């Protein structure tokens, strides 16, 4: 399937990188990566531990500064932007280690995200009851990720898997165009995995998703296209079925067990 991108129109790709490189004191965590993410697709980024997946995410969302290379988002060069501004353009991430506002309730967690978009977040002279108008939408989002009963629970008291779900709900609240999910299923129970997988599938109709995941069944079921990274470089790209046949991928990532 490589090369398909070249035939298509440039704006089919919502995100493109050229020669993206990140060096930590002589160690290349990401090296010369050219990534093209098609609008509306679920694109998986897989690879062995330490391959540079999270680093890639950090570069894309500007939490790290690239050593070299260029990032285009919706055709615009965002290489030099600040992280918050990238988020405002609709490119939003979740974290590998779960990131919630621990002492806010689930509802409030989601509301914080809703509030950003709808302004009024600098209004220090107004009562916060103006935020109540977000409650319905927030409940809806919590419901989507199966957290209805946790609406009034502080995030810190929620089980791990639920925190991941909450994080996704919060991210969705921003109504992003593209979501970067870093191991969204890590540490979840089976039921939750299925729920979240279904959720991702559902929302992918509206959003573009780039995700890192080690759970192969999830990757297999969800992703339209997969890029395999090793040692900071792209090793292969293609559909799951193709990649499982690729000896290099097997050796580097999947292991012998995967036929």
């Amino acid at each position: 399937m490589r090369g398909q991108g070249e035939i298509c129109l440039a704006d089919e790709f919502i995100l493109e990188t050229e020669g993206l490189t990140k060096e930590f004191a002589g160690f290349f965590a990401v090296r010369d990566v050219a990534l093209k993410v098609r609008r509306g697709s679920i694109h998986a980024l897989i690879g062995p531990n330490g391959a540079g997946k999270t680093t890639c995410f950090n570069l894309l969302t500007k939490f790290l500064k690239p050593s070299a290379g260029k990032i285009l988002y919706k055709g615009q060069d965002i290489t030099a932007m600040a992280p918050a501004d990238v988020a405002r353009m609709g490119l939003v991430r979740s974290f590998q280690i779960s990131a919630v506002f621990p002492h806010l309730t689930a509802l409030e967690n989601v509301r914080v995200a809703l509030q950003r978009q709808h302004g009024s977040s600098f209004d220090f002279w107004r009562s916060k009851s103006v935020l109540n108008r977000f409650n319905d939408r927030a409940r809806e989002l919590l419901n989507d990720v199966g957290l209805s009963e946790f609406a009034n629970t502080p995030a810190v008291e929620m089980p791990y898997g639920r925190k991941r779900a909450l994080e996704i709900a919060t991210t969705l609240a921003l109504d992003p165009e593209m979501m970067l999910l870093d191991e969204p299923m890590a540490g979840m129970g089976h039921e939750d995995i299925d729920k979240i997988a279904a959720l991702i599938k559902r929302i992918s109709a509206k959003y573009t998703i780039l995700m890192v995941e080690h759970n192969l069944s999830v990757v297999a079921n969800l992703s339209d296209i997969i890029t395999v990274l090793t040692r900071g470089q792209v090793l292969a790209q293609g559909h799951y079925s193709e990649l499982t046949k690729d000896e290099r991928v097997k050796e580097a990532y999947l292991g012998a067990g995967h036929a």
Partner: protein
Amino acid sequence: MTTLTDDTLRATPRAMRDEMIVFVVMALLLAAVPFTGVYPFFVMQALCFALLACAFNLLIGYGGLLSFGHAMFLGTAGYCSAHALKVWGLPPELGILVGVAAAFALSIVTGYISIRRQGIYFSMITLALSQLLYFIYLQAPFTHGEDGIQGIPQGHMFGVLDLSKPTVLYYVVLAGFLAGFLLIFRIINSPFGEVLKSIRENEQRAISLGYRTDQYKFLAFVLSGTLAGFAGSLKVFVAQNASLTDVHWSMSGEVVLMTLVGGLGTIFGPVVGAFVIIAMQQYLASFGQWVTVIQGSIFVICVLTFRRGVIGEIAHYFRRSL
């Protein structure tokens, strides 16, 4: 860094109602002071510090930013108001305005420098800035160095309120305090306040949600600094002097103490804390040399036994947010 506040208590609509009730009770009690025989100057002074502590609390308790240089706003506003009143002969309301404006300007400058720093480094850069300012005030002629500006005229506010009458002064100060307090209360419970709290909780996450967190922290810093300045301007009328004490680092430390003793991140805590500390300074003064020992013991006991502060402990006991 663990959070300092008791976060098992969250603002729910019921909590807001509780807080309003307590506020009204507090306002009534304070309004009754002149009829009780309690010495009004003591209360006025405590009110000024209470406002300062509340402003400080806005930054630490809700923004997670521990400023170790809040005295600089108090002192700057104090000096500027004092100078305006005494040398330029401005009426009280304009004197206050001058002081508050100075604190506002100062908080913009210092906020711009310090806000990008995290945790303990933020504290330290605010401390360093306030020490620089201390040095400037020590050297600048208009502050009269160690002697301070003394004998400041109180004047007539709006041309009618004679501030040299203790009762009139008392109500003016009380009104100022209540206004400042309500503003802070509102800020905490505003959309802005919500964002601030979430930044305190997890700044990285807030950034990833698209918040330019520096701007929010900056606004919180400026609001806090300006309100602290307002406290400083009011204090000029009460103390009728402006001195280096108000810009010294130990004053910044005292504010931290007041807030902690009362209860960090509680709305009424700083007020109670300010009253406790000021009362301690006043009434322990007659214990002679043992003052510092007694004061020290109180801090030790506070930290070891009721760390949430007076109000924090009460709130925790009743499982209410106060």
